[in-house]
């Protein structure tokens, strides 16, 4: 796969768009384009969301298109299911990903299964936006990475952008999809900027992209850790290590083609994520990359992940989060 267009490289100019801004624009444009798109959740109305992703939309579209629901996540997802059954395209927000857990049954037992249950008669064009991961100094329950729960659930599509251009393009694609999409937004990247002219269309929502080419190792990342991977690639380059960075973008489905091509080229792979390593999404990545490319691998696929402990309090998160140094240390642990 080709790298993203130049516009996607961060440059910090004043015409820059933040990820929150790009998501906001995507919602606005989707609502403008299709009267069936409705947005609801906790504080998404007049406040514009605690991360300001829905800023200004209530003013623009009014209470019938975007509104504050009662404070109950199962209620939010459950009523969204009913709305989607009727043909609306609801986009709901879980305020933080630990607060999606009350909706777990609705997501797993209905959102994921409705289309299959009804033999394709009832599909649910529903987007569940989940701000996820840490590195924002959040207190307990504000920094979980819940992706492994969703990716282990057949029937869900799970995607996550790592930059504003993808945020815009992928959210539009998620809303346009007739399948339910869990749209995971890396909280720590909400304020990251990129010079961009909207609307923008990047690679298809279900494809990974090679963000940086390299020859020695394939470093697989997604969402918040893409930045870490790029930094590691920079630092690696300085040490003479040529790191190819793949941004997965789609966690389910997994883009075996793009990742496989890269791994077969480099012969080594590592995956970085914030969630705990044990049972984390990286296990699937390591397992399937190995299954499909075993005889091309010169070393086991490495997982550089959070420790197998609950996400720590703000003063300790720096020790928990994978850093570029930790990535390079891990790569150095291979026999080369």
């Amino acid at each position, binding site marked *: 796969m080709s790298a993203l267009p130049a516009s996607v490289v961060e440059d910090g100019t004043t015409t820059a768009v933040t990820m929150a801004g790009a998501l906001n624009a995507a919602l606005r444009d989707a609502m403008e384009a299709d009267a069936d798109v409705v947005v609801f959740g906790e504080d998404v109305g007049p406040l514009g969301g605690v991360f300001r992703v829905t800023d200004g939309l209530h003013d623009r579209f009014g209470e019938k298109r975007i509104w504050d629901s009662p404070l109950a996540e199962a209620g939010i*997802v*459950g009523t969204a*299911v*009913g709305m989607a*059954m009727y043909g609306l395209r609801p986009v709901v927000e879980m305020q933080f990903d630990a607060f999606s857990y009350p909706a777990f049954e*609705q997501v797993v037992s209905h959102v994921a299964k409705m*289309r299959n249950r009804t033999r394709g*008669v009832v599909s649910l064009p529903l987007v569940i936006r989940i701000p996820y991961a840490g590195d924002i100094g959040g207190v307990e329950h504000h920094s979980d990475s819940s992706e492994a729960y969703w990716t282990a659930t*057949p029937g869900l599509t799970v995607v996550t952008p790592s930059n504003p251009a993808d945020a815009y393009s992928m959210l539009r694609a998620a809303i346009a999809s007739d399948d339910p999409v869990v749209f995971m937004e890396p909280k720590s990247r909400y304020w990251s900027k990129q010079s961009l002219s909207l609307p923008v269309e990047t690679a298809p929502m279900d494809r990974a992209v090679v963000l940086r080419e390299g020859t020695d190792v394939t470093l697989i990342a997604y969402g918040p850790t893409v930045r870490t991977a790029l930094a590691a690639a920079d630092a690696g380059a300085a040490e003479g290590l040529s790191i190819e960075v793949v941004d997965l973008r789609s966690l389910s489905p*997994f883009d075996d083609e793009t990742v496989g091509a890269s791994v077969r080229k480099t012969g080594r792979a590592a995956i970085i994520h914030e969630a705990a390593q044990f049972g984390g999404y990286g296990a699937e990545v390591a397992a399937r990359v190995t299954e499909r490319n075993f005889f091309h691998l010169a070393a086991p696929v490495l997982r550089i992940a959070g420790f197998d402990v609950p996400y720590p309090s703000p003063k300790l998160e720096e020790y928990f989060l994978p850093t570029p140094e930790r990535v390079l240390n891990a790569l150095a642990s291979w026999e080369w």
Partner: protein
Amino acid sequence: MCIFSDAPSARSTVSHDGHMTLNVERADSRTLPSLKPLRLLDNAGHAVSGAETGGFALPDLETLLGLYRRMVIARRFDVQVTALTRQGRLATFPSALGQEACEIGAVSALRREDWLFPTYRDTIALLTRGVDPAELLAQFRGDWHSGFDQKAHRCASQSTPLATQALHAVGLAHAARLRRDPIVALTFLGDGSTSEGDAHEAFNFAAVWQTPTVFVVQNNQFAISVPLSKQTRARTIADKAVGYGMPGYHVDGNDVAAMYAVTSAAVDRARAGDGPTLIEGLTYRIEAHTNSDDPTRYRDKRDVEHWKRRDPIERLERYLVSEGALTEDVRAEITAAAEELAATTRDAMNTEVEHDPLELFRHVYGTPRAALAEQRDALAAELAGRPGGAE
């Protein structure tokens, strides 16, 4: 196949005098439901008058005859399916024997364009909505998770995870309201299910959003083995409505006239934009929870006998006979229709349908997935007797 051509009119038969109309003021005045369940016919089949009726009027004879016909046919069906299940033709079946008044009284208040969100228990309500028996029973025979076309029938599938469907009903009703479609969504819940968080959230969302939703709680006094007293300390389940600022009705769930009248009023109210209603139908589960349950472990047979003597069909029959409306001709026609349906059902359940193992992969996603296609191909290869397939 819609087995009922003489569907009673969905228009309300409620007397709309000031006090009794279902309206917002009433909700706001926080009226407590009556402790004694509302009823229009007593167990002897006599029309009731006065306070006990809650101001609701007895539906006309034609409507009652239609309800009677539906109940008789539904029971015959229910008994037939239970028998087939005992013979091993179905994987499981939750009977609604004894709950016909709740099921049919409530669902008959809907129009064809309204939506129904049933539970596993409400097979006869779906039958009454016109779902074909074979398609209906596909779920319990184990052919597929749900066997009928939900959109065509405006019926959701029979929900297993308790109370979850109530939220779908609220969401769908809200969507319809946003589109200004004058339709209503009715959902059934069991007494036990009211303990779930989702029931609470559904009641609350509906009340806050004023969605056109009607909640019918079939209080059959048991959740599998657990009696109502271990489920709530409220005096009636309808009492819960107060906490949501919506009207609540405590109704004799074995009086189909009352169930029909109260639900019709609630449906009218919802359609008029005046929001949701909670209706409790007090009834009894005569059969076991499902065929795999053994109720002798947790309840007294004499209770069952007691409730059998309060049979919903017999009650209405007594009234219709006394009014001269249930002639031998009518009776014969109903019996014939019921027997015909039972025969159709037997035939359908005794006929194996073909299962395509590759259908496992067909409906999971609308957007095709390469990895799933690989798995499908691997299964196809396995079925064809070839080892491997993918990779």
